[in-house]
Every structure is written in C-alpha cells, then in structure tokens.
C-alpha cells in the first residue's frame, strides 16, 4: 500500500480498495480502454493494490499507438515534400515509421511543426498562403470535434492550402472487436471518460447487453479508476451487466450534442486499420464527400504506401491485452523509449512506455521512476 499516500484523498482510496477487496470473491479480468487510464494505473501501482485475482488488462485506447504504420509513412512522405508545413501533436514526433520518424524528417530539413490545437495549424495556413499546411488529424472521439472544427473553418474561410491527414478511430467498434476475438478474456470494461464527454453513453448499452459485460464510464485520476473498478467488480459479483457512469462530473448521458453535430457534419464512418491489431470494420472516421477536397491523402497522392511491421515488435498483442509489455523479449532490450520498435514504447499513453517508466526490472515503481526519468522525460 505504499503508493496510496500519493492519492489526492488517501482515506477515500483506502475505503474504495477495502470495498473492492471485500466484494471480489472470484477472479475477474477488467479492461481499461484508454491509454491515459493505463498510465495512471501503472504510475500509481493501482494494479498492485487490487486483490490478486482482479486483473487489469490494458486496452488499445492510445491514439498514437494505433495509428497504422502506412499512415505514419504517409505523414513522413508528405512532411518531407518541399512547400509543405506539416503540423502534428507533439506526441507523434517519435512514433516510428518504416525507417524514420517525424523528428528525423525535421532534422533532414522537413518543415514539421508542433501545434497545441488544430486551429493553430489553420492559422498557419492563413498566414502562409504560398505553402501547403497539413495537419495530422489522429485521435479518438475526444479529439474529433477539434479536428472537425478546423476543417469546417478552413472551408468557411476559403482556405485552399489546408488539409488533414486523417486517422480517426472510435471506441465502440474496438470493444466489439476485442469481445469477439477468440482469445478474449475480458469480463468488464472501464470505458474512456473523455470519449463519453463528447459522445455520451448511447452506444454502450447494446454492447453491455450483447456481450454481457459491465461497462463503467471512468475518469483518469487514481480515485476515478478505483471507483470504476469498484463498480465493475460489484456488477460482476452480482451477475449484472449494465452501463454505469462513474465520471458524472464530466460525462452527461447525451455527451456534448454540439460537438457530435460537428463531427457528423464533417466526418463519415469508415473501416480502419489499427496498428498492431489490423482492420476493424466501421471503427474510424474519414472526411465525408463535402470535405474530401481537404483530404491530404488524395491531395498528395500517397495512397500507394504499403508497409510491414517489424516482426520483433509485439505491440499488437499488448494493444489487444493478450500480453503484458514485460512479456515481450524486445522490451527494455532492443526496444526502449530511445530506440522504440513500436508506438506503444513512445507515447505517453502507450502501455510499453508506462511499464518502462515505472516497472522496469521489477523495481518498485516509486524507486524506478527516478532512474527511468533520466532517460525519458516524465510523461505521467
């Protein structure tokens, strides 16, 4: 219980843990969908505070990690072209493509910019009418309203030198894919809170019913996660499978309707490849017909790029919850944050990076962090 003092309300944390310990009479396997939750769990040692027979399986909810390799290579190709300003969120800089990353493209002379918001990329396009400004629009439902607004504004302002390289993914089809995989062990989900802040909860009851799993909408802070686990375990012990909202302070039943309307105005549902996992039907968004002129894939004609992942990297199994990062032979040896084989070792939300930062060599998490941080900037 040594990490419990780091919780912002240790008393409440202890009470939630006591309830989980009292409730859990059988082995249960829960999946936290979101990479931000994974990081919080490993950082605070939440998995080690739970009863031994309550397992947390880390899910695929890290947008940086699941952006497919061929899209990364498309980004690298576009960013290398003269006349292009390529804008990205900071956490994509070191995601490995087939033979380099955006960080290296910049070193080789590409004009790669880090933006905080997609509207910053739009502003760059307005100020540089003689350049093509491309924004790398990745993310789950949480990020889609921002990216949709950027392209919507571009059209309104008549900016023709702005485009999006879109690799948007959606959570509910991923849950379906996980539950229908033959090797699935997941019995309940902590659903990603901020995804539901945007989308609401309407898509989840059908999944809970079909797969007979509790789905508890959960926040990102340690106490939120404990509360999500407590509710999921309680449902499982009672043989229930309902959708519950354990993050009501930020999630309304209907989400944010204005944001959803903007997503629907700009995007349409499409099949998507997930890095390390493969194709999942209807699991993404692409620009719809009305906004297709802003699609960088067509503007720069990079549709022909096909790639293969390094065989040594088992990120796909990690993302599906089939193995823990430490079960991969490359973990911490050939694959480190400095020389990542897969995106899960790079992103602040990647499970491999979280384990490298806090669990390397089975050192106690609290002591491992200092050493690891010298090599890798603290990410959570």
């Amino acid at each position, binding site marked *: 219980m040594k990490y419990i003092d780091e919780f912002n309300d240790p008393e409440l944390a202890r009470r939630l843990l006591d309830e989980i310990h009292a409730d859990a009479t059988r082995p249960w396997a829960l999946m936290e969908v979101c990479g931000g939750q994974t990081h919080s769990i490993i950082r605070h040692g939440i998995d080690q505070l739970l009863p031994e027979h309550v397992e947390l399986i880390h899910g695929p909810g890290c947008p940086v990690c699941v952006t497919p390799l061929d899209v990364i290579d498309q980004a690298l190709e576009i960013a290398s072209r003269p006349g292009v300003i390529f804008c990205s969120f900071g956490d994509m800089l070191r995601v490995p493509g087939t033979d380099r990353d955006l960080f290296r493209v910049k070193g080789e002379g590409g004009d790669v910019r880090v933006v*905080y918001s997609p509207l910053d990329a739009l502003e760059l396009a307005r100020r540089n009418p003689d350049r093509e400004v491309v924004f790398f629009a990745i993310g789950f439902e949480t990020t889609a309203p921002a990216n949709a607004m950027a392209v919507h504004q571009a059209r309104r302002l008549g900016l023709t030198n702005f485009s999006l390289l879109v690799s948007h993914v959606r959570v509910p089809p991923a849950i379906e894919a996980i539950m229908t995989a033959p090797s699935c062990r997941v019995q309940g989900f902590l659903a990603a809170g901020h995804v539901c802040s945007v989308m609401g909860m309407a898509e989840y009851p059908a999944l809970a019913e079909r797969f007979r799993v509790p789905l508890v909408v959960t926040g990102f802070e340690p106490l939120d996660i404990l509360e999500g686990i407590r509710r999921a375990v309680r449902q499982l012990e009672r043989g229930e499978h309902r959708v519950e909202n354990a993050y009501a302070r930020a999630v309304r039943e209907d989400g944010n309707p204005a944001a959803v309307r903007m997503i629907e105005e700009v995007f349409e549902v499409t099949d998507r490849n997930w890095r390390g996992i493969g194709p999942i039907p209807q699991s993404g968004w692409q620009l719809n017909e009305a906004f297709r002129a802003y699609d960088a894939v067509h503007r720069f004609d990079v549709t022909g790029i096909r790639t293969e992942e390094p065989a040594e990297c088992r990120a796909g199994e990690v993302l599906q919850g089939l193995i823990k990062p430490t079960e991969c032979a490359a973990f911490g040896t050939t694959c480190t944050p400095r020389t990542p084989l897969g995106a899960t070792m790079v992103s602040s939300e990647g499970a491999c990076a979280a384990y490298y930062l806090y669990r390397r060599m089975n050192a106690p998490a609290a002591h491992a962090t200092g050493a690891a941080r010298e090599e890798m900037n603290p990410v959570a």
Partner: protein
Amino acid sequence: MCLAVPGKVVSIDDSADPLTGLIDFGGVQKQACLSYVPDVRVGEYVIVHVGFALQRLDEESALASLRLFEELGLLEEEFGDAWEQASRDAGVAAVTEEPRESEAR
C-alpha cells in the same frame, strides 16, 4: 494528447468566430475554442482538450484535478516544449526551436 485539462474561463471574446476564451490552467493561460460550450460564463470551469472546451466542470473537482496534474508533471507535458522532450527521448541535442504555434497566435 488525450489529456483533457480543467481550467477556469478568464475572459470570453464574443466577437471571435469560432467563439474563443482565455483559460487559466493553474497559472498557465491559453486561448481555447468555446463553441461546444457556448453558454459558459467567465469564472466557470471547463475541461479543455487540444484547445477545445468539451464540458463544464464544477470548481471543486476542477481544482482537485489541477492540483493532481501539477504534482504529476502533467501540465508540463501538456503545455511544455514537445521538441525539447522529443530531443531528450531520442538522446540527441535539442532541435532548433520554432516558436510554439499556439504561442504565436
């Protein structure tokens, strides 16, 4: 990037399109789009993700979250210099700086 950070609405620019406001994240101030929470008022708290306010939040939980984020270094990660961090991770000298686009606005 999936982080959504609570912040206090300091001011609102009604003339901006899309609707924009200045948000204070425990001392760091940034502009954010308020189009998705159009009825928000100065002094209220919102959750902001990549420059967009997504929902309102009550003051007590917003302040508790901000304290935690500060302690965990998450604010530095969200608003710090991504090139500097990438350079450190890659183990190379810092890449020549461009001004952060959000700061140039």
